[in-house]
């Protein structure tokens, strides 16, 4: 086995036993990244010099006995998360040269835990998309099949972890942007409970839905990353002052007696037969380990997409008003042009088509005369969706479903049909609306070799239950041990 195929936990063991140094591991990962990037395009910025400097510091910590589970492990960060001194573009032309003067809280936490940052991962512009094709810098390809999309918006993160050009990655998930690409690339991804991980220093898309979370190749690896990034942050007023449990301990809980809900609305028409088969087989594995299955109903599921595509664009249109060409980012200033000309030219030339579409949709939904019919109504239906989950969690400990209706589709297949593209998120966006944690993990491959994902959803702050379920599943199966052909 090559170094880049090790799990994070295995690599950490080798480091702490001093069988390899972080510098050696980092050099191997830089070589792996350089070998895979021409095909994948998972990174927007590569930071090998910074990585090696951080690896040297990690080796000192390892020698000094002050190393933690992540110390010296090479990783990548989604390019929508601020990294001091390293460009953060949100995959947009409007932030092409933006160099943040500070770290996002989660990056500061990772640095304190011994981060080695290989670079910044590609994404759909401002995290708006389900395929990474909305990146202003070109799409990422799926390592299992280069013709396929990696999913999105955190497509670079998922593709990179799958291909072994990072041991773990941090993405963001507003409607499925961690779980759907994790599913399409055959890795584990978690969107924690809203407020579990600080949003301070993350470029805002939809503030009531955005949440950062980890990608890794196993549930055990993912738990180590979540342990570091989770926790209250006084700099984010929406971060939750809830104690962080021992996630590693949760891995050993098992699933015996856990009540698992199967929402009938998530197993209806529109699911590809091979996805259904793989998910049903996975559920049988959990049943065999002692989980109790219950059929449940989330009756307002069919309204989720409409609610989401009102609320998310509405919040986005407000958040993205800050890109005005004044303080940072692109600024188009014609000779003798007015301030208004600067606003109009900067925004029209800086934003890509999907971002413009969502700003338009959100501005419309918030505009005089339409507010009640769209934004007001969506907020009310959001309440009904949340009540569905509350009632379900009175009967079950967690919910299981597919992550997406199909495996990864081909690049270019849906770029001209936004409504079809939005349907990719139909099983993931309700958890964002309700603020719940959700996790995606691999549960098989299609006949053409494209990964299929299994989703667990839990009540607020039930990340431990999701980890216990995921760990039990991965102890019984080998889907997560497969590597893509790249």
């Amino acid at each position, binding site marked *: 086995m090559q170094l880049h195929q090790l799990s994070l936990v295995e690599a950490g063991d080798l480091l702490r036993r001093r069988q390899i140094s972080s510098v050696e591991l980092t050099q191997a990962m830089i070589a792996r990244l350089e070998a895979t990037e021409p095909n994948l395009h998972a990174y927007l910025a590569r930071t090998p010099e910074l990585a090696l400097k951080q690896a040297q510091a990690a080796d000192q910590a390892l020698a000094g006995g002050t190393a933690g589970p992540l110390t010296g492990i090479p990783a990548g960060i989604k390019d929508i998360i601020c990294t001091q001194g390293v460009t953060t573009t949100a995959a947009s032309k409007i932030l092409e040269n933006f160099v943040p003067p500070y770290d996002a809280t989660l990056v500061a936490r990772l640095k304190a835990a011994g981060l080695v940052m290989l670079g910044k991962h590609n994404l759909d512009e401002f995290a708006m998309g389900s395929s990474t094709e909305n990146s202003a810098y070109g799409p990422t390809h799926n390592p299992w099949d280069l013709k396929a999309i990696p999913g999105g918006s955190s497509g670079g993160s998922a593709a990179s972890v799958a291909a072994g050009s990072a041991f773990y990655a941090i993405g963001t998930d507003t409607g499925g942007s961690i779980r759907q690409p994790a599913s399409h690339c055959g890795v584990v991804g978690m969107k924690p409970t809203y407020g579990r991980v600080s949003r301070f220093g993350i470029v805002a898309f939809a503030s009531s839905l955005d949440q950062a979370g980890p990608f890794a190749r196993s549930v055990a690896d993912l738990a180590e990353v979540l342990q570091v990034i989770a926790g209250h942050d006084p700099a984010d007023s929406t971060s939750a002052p809830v104690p962080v449990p021992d996630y590693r301990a949760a891995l050993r809980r098992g699933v015996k007696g856990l009540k698992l809900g199967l929402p009938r609305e998530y197993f209806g028409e529109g699911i590809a037969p091979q996805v259904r088969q793989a998910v049903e087989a996975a559920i049988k594995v959990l049943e065999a380990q002692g989980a109790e299955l219950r059929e449940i109903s989330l009756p307002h599921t069919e309204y989720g997409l409409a609610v989401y595509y009102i609320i998310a664009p509405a919040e986005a249109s407000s958040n993205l008003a800050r890109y005005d060409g004044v303080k940072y980012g692109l600024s188009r200033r014609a000779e003798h042009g007015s301030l208004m000309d600067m606003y109009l030219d900067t925004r029209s030339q800086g934003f890509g088509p999907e971002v413009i579409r969502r700003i338009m949709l959100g501005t419309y939904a918030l505009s005089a005369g339409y507010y009640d019919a769209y934004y007001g*109504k969506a907020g009310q239906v959001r309440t009904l969706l949340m009540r569905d989950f509350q009632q379900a969690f009175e009967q079950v400990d967690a919910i299981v479903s597919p992550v997406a209706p199909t495996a990864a589709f081909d690049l270019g297949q849906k770029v001209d049909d936004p409504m079809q593209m939005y349907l990719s998120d139909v099983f993931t966006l309700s958890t964002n609306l309700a603020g719940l944690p959700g996790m995606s993990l691999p549960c098989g491959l299609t006949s053409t070799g494209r990964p299929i994902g299994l989703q667990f959803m839990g009540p607020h702050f039930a990340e431990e239950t999701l980890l216990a379920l995921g760990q039990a599943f991965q102890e019984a199966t080998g889907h997560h041990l497969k590597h893509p052909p790249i």
Partner: protein
Amino acid sequence: MKITPEEVAHVAALARLRLSPEQSAKLTGQLNDILTHMDKLAKLDTSGVPSTNHALALTGALRPDQARPSLPRQEGLANAPDSDGVSFIVPRVI
């Protein structure tokens, strides 16, 4: 038609976007598709249902009113498209 070309122009002006005629035509069609899907919300009876703006019942996060170090001016201006070292410079307004 849910949204007319005139409304698209109005919304673009509100959002400070300059759209080409081709962009406007394409967007009008796409926004109509999307808004047609939203119609299903109108069929749902939500009378008496409160609106949710936030999934967690967090109350206002307050901290002691103490001065703390903040971003130095130079760093705050470092990404400015134009500045005189003290302020952001923008086109003349008056």
